[in-house]
């Protein structure tokens, strides 16, 4: 399978501080990858680096569908088919729910996802369309953040801790919708604190620690101890 996203020797920096060290990985069409790792491991930096939000980075190769993207602005990369649901949702606070969704059209990518399909996916949002997003609950805001990203009709969707701070039932609802998203052939990279959930949804996992890849492969190919060791850097209990 030819890779959709190909990352080779990615290093990222915040000033003098190096946050990613020689990260290699690739994502095939339609694949689901989970990136796990403790706080500060570099998961968000990884997603922000590949989408062009974080510019302090270098890579031997960073390509999307065969095209080099390391010099491209985030807005251009989105137009090429990759976007991110950012950590903390980051909705546009002076826009209504519906405006937060329709602004995704700016990417200029027509496809399966349009406003009515988003409302079908998240029926709760239909009645809230005219509301300011600041009036929504955390779970509803997360739906808007996902809907906004889907409106750009990505081939590859990156999600950074979409379950953070949400009630378990809400998280379950959001992950149930993943099946429908993936059903459109969309590849997904999720960053998830809940390792159990990550292992259950992903085709492959990548474990980061201190900015480096400790382990990568199909969930079934690792024991719990191997994963715990990669995650914590010590023998699991």
């Amino acid at each position, binding site marked *: 399978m030819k890779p959709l996203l190909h990352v080779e020797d990615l290093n990222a920096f915040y000033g003098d501080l190096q946050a990613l060290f020689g990260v290699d990985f690739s994502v095939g069409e339609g694949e689901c990858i989970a990136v796990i790792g403790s706080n500060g491991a570099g998961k968000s930096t990884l997603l922000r680096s590949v989408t062009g939000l974080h510019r302090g980075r270098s890579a031997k190769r960073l390509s999307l569908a065969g095209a080099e993207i390391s010099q491209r602005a*985030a807005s251009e990369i*989105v137009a090429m088919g990759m976007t991110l649901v*950012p950590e903390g949702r980051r909705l546009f606070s*002076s826009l209504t729910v519906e405006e937060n969704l329709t602004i995704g059209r700016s*990417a200029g*990518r027509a496809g399966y996802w349009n406003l009515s399909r988003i409302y079908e996916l998240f029926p709760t949002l239909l009645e809230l369309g005219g509301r300011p997003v600041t009036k929504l609950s955390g779970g509803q805001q997360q739906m808007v953040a996902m809907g906004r990203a889907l409106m*750009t009709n990505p081939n590859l969707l990156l999600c950074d801790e979409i379950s953070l701070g949400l009630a378990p039932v809400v998280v379950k609802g959001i992950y149930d919708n993943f099946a429908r998203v993936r059903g459109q052939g969309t590849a997904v990279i999720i960053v998830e604190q809940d390792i159990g959930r990550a292992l259950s949804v992903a085709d492959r996992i990548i474990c980061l620690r201190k900015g480096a890849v400790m382990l990568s492969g199909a969930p079934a190919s690792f024991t719990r101890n191997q994963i715990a060791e990669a995650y914590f850097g010590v023998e699991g209990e």
Partner: protein
Amino acid sequence: MASGADVIVQGILLGGLYALFAMGLSLVFGVMRLVNLAHGDFIVAAAFAAFCVVSVLPIHPFLAIAAVVPFMAGLGYLIQLGLFNRLLGKDPLRPLLVTFGVSVVLQNALLMTFSADTRRLSAGSIETQSVDVGSVTIGVYPAVVFAMALAVTMALQWIFYSTALGQRLRATSDDPEIVGLVGVDHLRVFAIASAIAFAVIGIAGVLMAIRGNFDPFMGPARLLVAFEAVIIGGLGNFWGTLVGGIVIGLAQSIGAAIDPAYQTIAGHIVFFAVLLLRPDGLFPKVAHQ
């Protein structure tokens, strides 16, 4: 002596011109948190641009707007892409220093090109025409200026709240980084915002040139009035900016009625009073988190 009603009406109409001075500043600050200290000098530059237009074309100075506005819009777009976009970042001092430098350069460029002579554009009989409404005399030209201010306010409000461009402008104002994730290039949005602001600067410059005298050094005073109007109205709010302009116009008009020497200072005093009583302006943007 003019009646009280005359003073009020003249003050309100004068406020329209001040609101036009302020609208571009309000827009640019609202979208990109940039304070352009050369704002007033660009208004003066637009006045001189109109002066050039009417000296080569035999048209009414009012029609010079049709040439000056697109010229200024293009200038704003290019200056934003070429200069202002590079100043935006963590250090708030940089845009202040650089735009202050632009202000000095612009003043001196205008001085070298046009000399220090005071100019004005003659608009013919409309300047002196007036209509009596009851006991109040309304100057036709000030009324036209006020109508323009109202039209500009409504147009900006419409662009921001009823168009796809406005949606992008507001989103970029909220979070210039994250708009990238929906395919919006924030630097280009800034350039478009600047083009719109400079178009309004163009309108303000031409109307100012017709109303009274201008010379290369009157930019900073226009900037000050614009600042005061924006802050009185509450940052990032076009209707507020219009009201802010009117408040200053009224204060000046009332001050001048008491003693002509008080005109300018009365505006500043009201500005300070508002700042003391309502530090966020009369119409603070609703806090959103």
